[in-house]
């Protein structure tokens, strides 16, 4: 299951730490995940999975340590790093009063996607929302929100997908679509926090287990690249 050491890492973290008051929520996590790898981030509630992902996507500033994604350092080039990542969070992060088409057009423009219209059509068809593209997001079900959130996260063709409980709200057909478009998509590097340990074998190439903020098990990193 562990990837070989020959592929250079696309995601590297060096002693990444987040401290609130005196409490270390994430403690000195060092990873080196190869391009195209699919990492399951597991651990009990409060283990630090969401905080680690929030640091990697620049929403939370680390207290100590640094990270590099696709060659862009978290602290030095956050905007360039954000262009390389797609984020699928707990909340779908969609404008409820806008339609799926309008949402994706807005995010495509925000990311400077040049071929926005064909890309949006391709994604909306892939996630099964094309026929409902003119309806306000507020009338769509939770499952459709999650499908649309996936399309939003992928609209700019990110190199790395950071996902927090990506299966939430999806029916079996939606989970299949998630696997096809994201978790098992060729070339896409995935780091996904999940409690669905029964499904990890279906998509992950490696696993990082967090306990009290510390990475206690890592079968995902490039051998020898970890500090």
């Amino acid at each position, binding site marked *: 299951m562990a990837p070989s050491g020959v592929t250079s890492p696309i995601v590297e973290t060096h002693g990444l730490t987040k401290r609130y008051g005196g409490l270390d929520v994430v403690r000195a996590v060092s990873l080196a995940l190869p391009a195209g790898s699919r990492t399951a981030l597991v651990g009990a509630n409060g283990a630090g999975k969401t905080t680690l992902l929030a640091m990697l996507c620049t929403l939370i500033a680390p207290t100590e340590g640094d990270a590099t994604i696709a060659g862009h350092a978290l602290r030095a080039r956050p905007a360039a790093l954000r262009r390389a990542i797609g*984020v699928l969070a707990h909340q779908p*992060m969609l404008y409820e009063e806008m339609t799926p088409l309008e949402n994706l057009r807005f995010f495509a423009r*925000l990311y400077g996607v040049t071929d926005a219209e064909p890309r949006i059509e391709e994604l909306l068809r892939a996630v099964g929302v094309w026929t409902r593209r003119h309806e306000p997001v507020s009338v769509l079900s939770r499952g459709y929100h999650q499908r649309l959130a996936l399309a939003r996260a992928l609209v700019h063709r990110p190199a790395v997908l950071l996902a927090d409980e990506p299966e939430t709200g999806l029916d079996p057909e939606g989970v299949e679509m998630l696997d096809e478009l994201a978790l098992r998509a060729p070339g896409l590097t995935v780091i996904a926090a999940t409690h669905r340990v029964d499904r990890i074998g279906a998509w992950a190439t490696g696993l990082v287990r967090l306990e009290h903020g510390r990475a206690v098990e890592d079968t995902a990193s490039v051998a020898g690249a970890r500090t």
Partner: protein
Amino acid sequence: MNAGLAVVAKDLRLAWRDRAGWASAGAFATIAVLTYSFAFDLATGDIRPLLPGVLWTTFLFASIFAGGQSFARESEEGTFDALLLAPVPATVIYLGKATANVIAMLVIEFAQLLLATILFDTNLLSPELLVIVFIGTVGAVALTTLLSTMSASMRGRAMLLPVMALPLLIPLLIGAVRATGASLDLESGTAPWTLLLGVFALWSALLSVLLFPMAVER
């Protein structure tokens, strides 16, 4: 630039679709102007000296109210995080949101000036006064947009925002009221109130642009 314009277009679209926030601010401003007109009609013969104060207290409260609504919705739906995840500086997001708020506020203010012109039988649509309203609105919205970002995730934000904003807006309020008074020939002396208002508006806009990235940092 394109990202900033995308935020402006998106916010104006949302303001139009979900009119509750801006309609409430507009309704508040209308009720305030109507109430003042009835009250002053009974209390005093010449109401013109009171007009600058009436207009600007109404505008500032409407601006605080509407600004708070705009960010509260982003915070609740998690879309503000989506904006911060975009590969553009936080300043661009701020400028986009502030510009949309200025445009929406100007629409409300123009309607109130029209209403007040009728109710108070005084021309409040002169080019000079419109310039003063524009400058004052830019200064006020710059600050309220910044402060509503900071208070969006706090409990009791509806109360916190005016408590934070009003003390900071006092210099702008004084400048705007005096400049408006001068434009209505109510002020004696030659103090350059419009210039002072412009300086304060510029200062508050620059300060907000500089502070916004820190305000959204976690």
